[in-house]
């Protein structure tokens, strides 16, 4: 690991002033520093901000999740489990017991891709690591790579799960920064790779995630996260679906759908939501919604199977959510 200067800060004001790479749980940062993929010169330990930003609170307005809360705490919180099962499941189906105790919610949404070419510096071509160098994955082993939101410069998959539940539930993210606090739709935090895959979010230098706000959504009790992967546990998604359904009998008033494991960023499937509105939810309408979700999919050989896997995942998630007794 390359040398770095280490500092720890007591509050958000100190953190945004400190300038540097923030360290919370460290499960992405330390890993990628050991691989020489991330090379911060200054590491700012923000774990003491947990005094201010780790509360989980539920009320009539909705759910507030402090960014320094650990994944495990949010996953087992009774209000989260009862009112927003898709959030609890997206967290508990991710990583391992140890990692969920370490990783914070803020760090979780900023986790970096698992693209093997990004993580292995012996590959010289990676636009995310080294802008302008090319993309080895396009013609490489790309079985796990994205099919939605790709660009000719990058097909790295966004690896997280929690972000899909946030984006499906119209969550907002709160930030602290050198020019003050701001709040934005969580959907606007991440950006698709486009021309410069090294830019993954709209965070400004020194900006820090302090919390997430999930608006009250009574029908979120009928929500779930379905994750399909190579192993049954402790594995990233090949395809996943976060769904919440507002049903009138068997008819869809409103559906919320986000897809994981298949896209370059947390992916809201609005076309699929629109396809379901006012329809009786059954295998055929679910399949039509899934077709809409993947209409723009672009594959690169190894991941040719992903659109079909993603569609089947979404169909199953929708039918399982319909069958929930809430």
């Amino acid at each position, binding site marked *: *690991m*390359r*040398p*770095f*200067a*280490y500092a*720890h800060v007591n509050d958000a004001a100190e953190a945004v002033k400190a300038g540097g790479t923030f*360290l919370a749980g*460290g*499960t992405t940062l*330390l*890993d990628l520093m*050991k*691989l020489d*993929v*991330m*090379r911060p*010169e200054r*590491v700012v*330990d923000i*774990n*003491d901000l947990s005094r201010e930003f780790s509360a989980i609170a539920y009320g009539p307005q909705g759910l507030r999740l402090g960014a320094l809360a650990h994944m*495990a705490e949010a996953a087992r919180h009774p209000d989260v489990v009862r009112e927003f099962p898709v959030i609890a499941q997206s967290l508990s189906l991710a*990583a*391992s*017991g*140890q*990692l969920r*105790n*370490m990783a914070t919610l803020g760090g979780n949404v900023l986790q970096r891709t698992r693209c093997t070419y990004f993580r292995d*510096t012996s590959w010289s071509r990676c636009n*995310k*690591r*080294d*802008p302008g160098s090319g993309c080895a994955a396009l013609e490489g082993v790309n079985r796990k790579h994205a099919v939605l939101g790709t660009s000719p410069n990058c097909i790295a998959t966004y690896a997280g799960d929690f972000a899909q539940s946030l984006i499906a539930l119209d969550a907002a993210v709160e930030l602290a920064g050198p020019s003050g606090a701001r709040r934005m739709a969580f959907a606007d935090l991440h950006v698709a790779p486009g021309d410069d895959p*090294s830019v993954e979010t709209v965070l400004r230098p020194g900006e820090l995630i302090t919390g997430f706000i999930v608006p009250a959504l009574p029908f979120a009790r009928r929500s779930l996260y379905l994750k399909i992967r190579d192993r049954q*546990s*402790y594995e990233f998604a090949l395809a996943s679906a976060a769904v919440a359904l507002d049903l009138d009998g068997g008819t869809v008033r409103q559906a919320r759908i986000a897809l994981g494991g298949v896209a370059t960023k947390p992916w809201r499937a609005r076309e699929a939501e629109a396809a379901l509105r006012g329809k009786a939810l059954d295998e055929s309408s679910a399949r039509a919604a899934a077709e809409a979700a993947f209409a723009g999919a672009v594959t690169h050989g190894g991941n040719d199977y992903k659109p079909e896997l993603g569609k089947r995942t979404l169909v199953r998630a929708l039918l399982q959510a319909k069958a929930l007794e809430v």
Partner: protein
Amino acid sequence: MATAEAAPPATPAAVPVTLNVNGKSHALALDPRTTLLDALREHLDLTGSKKGCDHGQCGACTVLVDGRRILSCLTLAAAVRGPVTTIEGLAQNGNLHPMQQAFIDHDAFQCGYCTPGQIMSAVACVREGHVRSDDEIREYMSGNLCRCAAYPNILAAIKDAAPRMLDKA
């Protein structure tokens, strides 16, 4: 992200780190790059915690901080706030912890390299209450890999130790 190679920075200044490990306090001056695992093994001679993958994938380095299981290989020693319990701190007054005894009784290891991490994780798994079924134990122990594949015996050991741990609590 990656930029052109700059001149290699000098070795960073040591940072003062106080670690409370198995009930004993240690004042150390460490290179900030030092992980908790390396601090335990290289500076405190507590070599029970093992370095497997060193990337948070295998669980061999699992220890408890503030009673919660974490991966010491992905934790900077300087960032540790709470008291640390390692495999060396489980036995009390020369008596093995019920989980240690159960691993012996059920032959829950072959080469033994992953065992300290398995046992620390298993102790936490029981305390978390994730031992209500075989599948739940498997799910909550999935962060500890055993290349010898002693999994059936590890499962048996955890099921055996859990009630005895809870009796004592």
